[in-house]
Structure formats: structure tokens, C-alpha cells
């Protein structure tokens, strides 16, 4: 088991956002975290990364308790994080952005180099000296995934990677994520719709107002339109 979370709750100030979530991702598995805008997907992922101060519950990553650790310790255990708003360093070039994410190779996980990443994201190859702030949204999304891979993670948390991207770019990204998965990198992917998840994920978790309302194979959602329509954006 790669990531195992039990009874995760999180608060922003006094408002409780998450209610006792249970999430698990096996090694190399791709799991979709689905829910409407405001359901608590971003909070779930940032709580796992240690970016939210007020949390409760347990989270084990490869057997190591990570809840309460500072974000850099979580990242160094091999848990990668791709934030919703991309957060590319706009003053830094593509190469420099990648350098910030660089971590030593990890045993048992494929080691990424800028060269290998640029074959995965060919768009970036021509832009290596371009500043992050001068790139299109799609290019930034590729860069932020590549930057996270520089840390050689064994599991990547992806927060709504398809948001605001043109369909053609989404297709390119799906190809890249598939290649990552084929390399043995696990994925926990948050989305409001099933477009990306269908191509990658085996299982789905559906959350609503911070509660886990459904979990099971992705195919169940199609056979259970009530849950799908109640919880997902059309």
C-alpha cells in the first residue's frame, strides 16, 4: 500500500472542510478524487501535503506517518504535488523551474532528468530558456507536472490538471500522465468531471461537502447515474 488515509478532517479557521475521509492509493495505482466545485478536493490534497495547519486523522505514506510533517519532508518521502493554480515560478526559466523541483534519485523509482522529461513533454523542449510567466496555460500545466516529476515521486497528487485547458492540450496531458503511470508512478487525481479520469483511473472516490459519498470502480459511476449527476459537474 502506498498511501493510506483514515478519518482525515481539516479546518480553515473555524470552518470544518473535511469530515473523516478515508482514501487509499496502492503503489502504481491511479485513483480519481471526484466532486463538485467546493466539495473539498483541493483541501484534501493540500492537507495530505502538510499545507493546512489544522488537520486530524492519520495518513501513512509507504508506512511513514506524514500528517503534521512540514511539506518539504512529505515531498522528500516521494509524494509529489501539482497544485490547482499551477504556481509556476514566473520569473524563472523552464530549466530553472525544473531545477527547483530536483531531488536525489530514489531507489525503486525511475529517476527523471530534464532530458527525459522533455521527451515526455515535447512542447517544453523548445522553451527551455523561456520564463514561466511568458508561457501559455497549457505550457505552464506541462511545466508544473514536469517540475514535480524532477523530485522522482512514487505518487503524485494532481489538483484539477485539466481546468481551463483546451481539449487538444488536455489530450497531450493525458498521454503524458499515461506514460507516467506506465513507469510505475501512482496518481491521485482530483477532477470535477470524468474526461481525464476515464483515460487513467481504475477507481474513483466521490466527495460532497467534505464527506466521502461513494467509492468503487470508475465504471460504477456510469451504472449509478444518480450519484454521478448529484456529485459531478455536467
Amino acid at each position: 500500500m502506498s498511501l493510506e488515509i483514515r478519518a482525515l478532517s481539516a479546518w480553515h479557521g473555524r470552518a470544518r472542510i473535511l469530515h473523516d475521509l478515508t482514501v487509499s492509493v496502492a503503489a502504481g495505482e491511479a485513483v480519481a478524487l471526484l466532486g463538485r466545485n467546493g466539495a473539498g478536493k483541493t483541501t484534501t490534497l493540500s492537507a495530505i501535503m502538510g499545507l493546512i495547519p489544522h488537520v486530524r486523522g492519520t495518513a501513512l505514506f509507504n508506512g511513514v506517518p506524514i500528517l503534521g510533517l512540514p511539506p518539504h519532508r512529505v515531498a522528500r518521502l516521494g509524494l509529489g504535488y501539482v497544485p490547482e493554480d499551477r504556481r509556476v515560478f514566473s520569473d524563472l526559466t523552464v530549466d530553472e523551474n525544473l531545477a527547483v523541483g530536483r531531488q536525489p534519485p530514489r531507489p525503486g523509482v525511475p529517476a527523471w532528468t530534464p532530458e527525459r522529461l522533455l521527451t515526455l513533454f515535447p512542447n517544453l523542449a523548445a522553451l527551455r530558456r523561456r520564463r514561466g510567466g511568458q508561457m501559455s496555460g497549457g505550457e505552464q500545466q506541462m511545466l508544473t507536472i514536469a517540475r514535480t516529476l524532477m523530485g522522482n515521486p512514487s505518487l503524485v497528487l494532481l489538483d484539477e490538471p485539466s481546468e481551463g485547458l483546451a481539449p487538444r492540450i488536455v489530450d497531450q496531458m493525458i498521454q503524458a500522465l499515461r506514460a507516467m503511470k506506465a513507469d510505475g508512478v501512482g496518481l491521485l487525481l482530483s477532477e470535477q468531471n470524468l474526461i481525464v479520469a476515464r483515460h487513467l483511473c481504475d477507481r474513483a472516490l466521490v466527495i460532497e461537502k467534505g464527506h466521502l459519498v461513494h467509492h468503487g470502480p470508475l465504471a460504477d459511476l456510469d451504472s449509478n447515474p444518480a450519484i454521478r449527476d448529484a456529485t459531478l459537474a455536467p
Partner: protein
Amino acid sequence: MDFLVIQALTGLASASSLFLVASGLSLIFGVTRIVNFAHGSLFMLGAYIAWTLTDALGWADHAGPLGFWGGVLASALMVAALGALIEIVILRRIYHAPPLFPLLATFGLALMIEDLVRLIWGPEDLLGPRAPGLDGAVTILGQKLPSYDLALIALGPLVLGGLWLLLHRTHWGVLVRAATQDRAMVGALGVNQARLFTGVFALGTFLAALGGAVQIPREAVHHALDMQIIVEAFVIVVIGGLGNVAGAFLAAVLVAELNAFGILLFPRIGLVLLFLVMAVVLVLRPHGLLGRPESEPRAAVAPTVDPWRPTGPTGWAVGLALAGGLALLPLVADAYVLSVATEILIFALFAASLHLMMGVGGMVSFGHAAFFGLGAYGAALATLGWGAPMAVGLVTGPLLALAGAAVAGWLCVRLSGVYLAMLTLAFAQIVWSVVFQWQDVTGGDNGLLGMWPDRWASDPAVFFWLTLGLCGGAIALTRHIAFSPMGYALRACRDSVRRAEAIGLDRARAQWVGFVLAGGLAGLAGALFAYLKGSVFPDVLGIPVSVDALVMVLLGGLGSLTGPLVGAVAYKTLAIVVSSWTDHWPLILGALIVGLVIAAPDGLTGLAHRLAAAGRHGRRAGRS
């Protein structure tokens, strides 16, 4: 003409030292978001330690150039180690506190360092050694320029180049630049922020101390260097653009040349010129010459978790009981205690007026003394110039402060965050130098003497009651404003400018009105202060008074309306009590401030709330 060239070169030599200090300040702010008020103190420490090594221990005499430069470098390294220690022991604990708390902690450090310097090196000016090998002069266009100045002129660009290489050609430098933009993301990518911050803080203090150490052959070392340099460094960093090293270099040259030529052209308003240039730059380029707007607007003041509640019947009862109890004070207290109590009341209003600007309006002011001082001078000029009674002075004082706040506010509301704070500081310094230099009207440094209250109020008890009535009423007014539609508009703009503007609020106008009102109330406090003391000096406009106000508000807790009152009473009482025991009250006060910031980052009122909550929790646990 030849003379002008030499003047320009001398200016460039000064620019190097200024650049070193300012680049360190800028780097530290860029990565850690800390406005390091102790930066000037570390500069001063660098100068003192370099003096000890090269002069008192005789390194420059015994070992020549190697001894001198070795001493300069050793001093900078020692101060850098101290900087790392400060970051690890103090600042690391408060990064998650509201953004202004680290500022308060560094202010406490500045107080401590200044006092320690006086303890260790004494109050006299110390003359530094000449740099061996560079003690001659070169002749340029028939004029002599010290060789040492030429060396300094070269040092500035050298350090700029070195910093550029460090920031652009090393992995550490890339991490620093990344953290300047988004430090949380850098952490989520596996970078140990704490270690990065320690490194940046050590590098910044190294540059500050080096800037101080290289100045010793040119200027005497004294214990007022800290405040002198911190103001110039702030101005340079703001003109250049926060977090931008190249901008700091440009601005350092600009400021140093302004100093060099300002003295020639306008000998009487040199300082005013400096701040005028800063005001012009900020109005034209709100983020400095080379600065860029922040990608995400950060609120200068953390939103309050507990929404404020209007004063209910209990609140009014407590307030009135408190005022009633205070009104009985003259029955038991002597004249000295009454004058202390009157002063505390005045400072409570001063703090409440700053809280209206900062806590309610979200506009941080580093120059609130401007309005306090304008109020004092407005009253003094009416009383002494026109022979008007006190009742008139208590109106003209606040009116002058209102007028000053109207002008300053018109400029300031175009900016936000630290830039706004710096512009308020600039405004206060401009007013200070006008008052200081316009001797015919203000008496300059000699001040205005002999403005006592009218005969009916000359009894300390009557003046205390008058102050209690006016300050109590004005403080009640600030509470009322916080819950008026204007207060809601101000708080909306404080919490989210975009959302406030999107629902149709005129942000600039709301903030301007808040700014002017806060200035006027500070003016009332200043006018009362002038009658209490019987005289006015330019000190009332000085940076220490502005800092006092800031400390009172932050000490009490920015997130509470009662905070400034608690802070004013605690701070003033502490200052008066401690300074009656010992001459070293800055040291003790500084240590107390640092300790308090670490123990209670939400201020005294926050501490009280937490203790009360813990008490309730404990009782509940005890019962079950």
C-alpha cells in the same frame, strides 16, 4: 565643474555602502517577507566590531592591508553568524504569525542591540583607522579624491556582480529566487524552507555588516547609526523595488547622488528632497523602479477569525464603569501620577487612531507621528502665535493634522502593503524636516515653549478630566466608526480589495476618508500632549514616536478593537516603570517585546482570550 565631478564620485562611494545594506534588506524581505527593522542595527554592529578588530586590536597597524580587510571581513562574518542565530532562535518561531509580528520582533532586537552597543563601546563617537595602502588621495581634474573612495566605488558593482552570479548561476540562488515568488510552493517541492531562510538571513546580515564595516575609514562610528541607516535603506529598497537587487543598486546610486548634490543645491531641505523623490517614484511606479507587482495581493493584515461584535449593553456598562472609575483617580492620586495617567490616556487615543487606520482600514503606517506632531504644532502655533485660548488650539491642532492627512492620504491610498507604509514614513520625515528647518515659525530644534493650558484647566485634576472626556469620546468614536457603513466598507477593502470593488465600493475614497479621520484623531492626541507637556519639539514627529504607536497597536493585538487600548496602557506603563529602575530600559523593553511576540503572536488581547479559553476548557475537563 571639476568640483561637481568629485562630488559625484564621493556620492558613488557612499552609494556602495548604502547598496550593501539595502541589497541585504531587500533579499531578506523578498524571501522571508520580513521587514527587518534591526537591519540598521546589524550595520552598526558591523562597523563597531570592525573598529574593534582593526583599530582597538590594531590589526590594521600590525598586518597592513591584510589586517584591515581581514578585520572588515571577519566582522561581517561574525555579524552574519549572529544573524543566522537570530533567525533560528527567534524569527523561525513566528513566520506563521501575522505579517507585522516579525517586524515587531526585529524592532525589539533593534532596541536591544542599540543598548548593548552603548554598554560595550560607550556613548562616544569612535574614529576608525585609515585603510592601509589606501590612505592617500588621487588627483582627478585638479581635485583630490581619497583613494579609499575609489576602492569603494569599485566595491559596489563588484558585489552586485557577485550577487547576480550567486542568484542566477547557483542552485541555491535559483531556490532563493523561486522562494521570493512563492515560498510555500518551494516547500511543497521538497526544499527545506527553514534552512533556506536561515541562509538568506545570514547573507542579508553579512551584507549589512559589510556595509557598516567598510564605512569606518570614512565616518565616525556612533550608536545612532542604526536609525539613520535603516531609514535610508528602507527608502532605497522601496525606490528600487522590494526584493530586487539590481533595483537596490540603482536606487542606492540615486539616493547617494541626491545626498551629495542636494546639500549643494538646497542645503536646508536635503532630507526633504530625498523623501520627495521617493514619493514621486512611488506615485509614478507603485512597485519601485524595477519592482514588479506581487502575483497575488497579500493582505497586510490577517483577517480576524472572530468577527468583531458591536459594543453591547454589557460593553457599554464596562466602558462607562471604567471611565467612571478613572474619573475618581484625582481623588487619590498625586500630581505626578495624574500626569502619567493623562499621558497614557493620550497615547491610548493615539494608538486607537492608528488601529483605525491599520486594524480597521488595513493600511499599515510607519509614520503616524506625522499627524500626532501636526496636532501638537497646530495647537502650539495657535496658542503662542495668536495668543488663542486652549479651546481654539484643541481645534486648530486636529485641523492641521486633518489637512496633513488629507494630502498624505491622497498619495498613500494609491499604494498598498509595505509600499504604503514606506510612503507614510516618508511623509512623516518630510514634515519632520520642514518643522526642524523652518526655525522662524516652529523654533526648529529649540521647539516652542510655554504653552500651558488655560487657567481653568491648569489644575492637573481638571486637565486629566478634560483628557479623559476627549480621549474617551474619541475612542468611543473609533469603535462607532468600525461598525458604521464606512467601517464595513473599510474592512471589506482590507479583507479583499477585488471583492470590495466588485460590489461597487469606491476603495480609494473609503480608504482616504479612513486615513484622514485617523490622522485627525491622532492630531487631537497630539494637541492634548502639547498642553500636557507645555512645549513642543520636533521629536513628536520623529520615527521613535511612530514606532511607539506601532508597538502599542501590535502589542495589544491588531485583531481586536480593545487591543490598542490594552497595548497603550501596557507599553506606556512598562516604559515608565522600567525606565525609573534602570538606564537600560531599551534593553529590557526590547527583550520583553521579543519574548512577547514569541509567546503571544496575537498580542496581549489574543493571549488573554487563549488563557480564558484554556481556563474554560480546564474547568469543563475537571467537571467531567
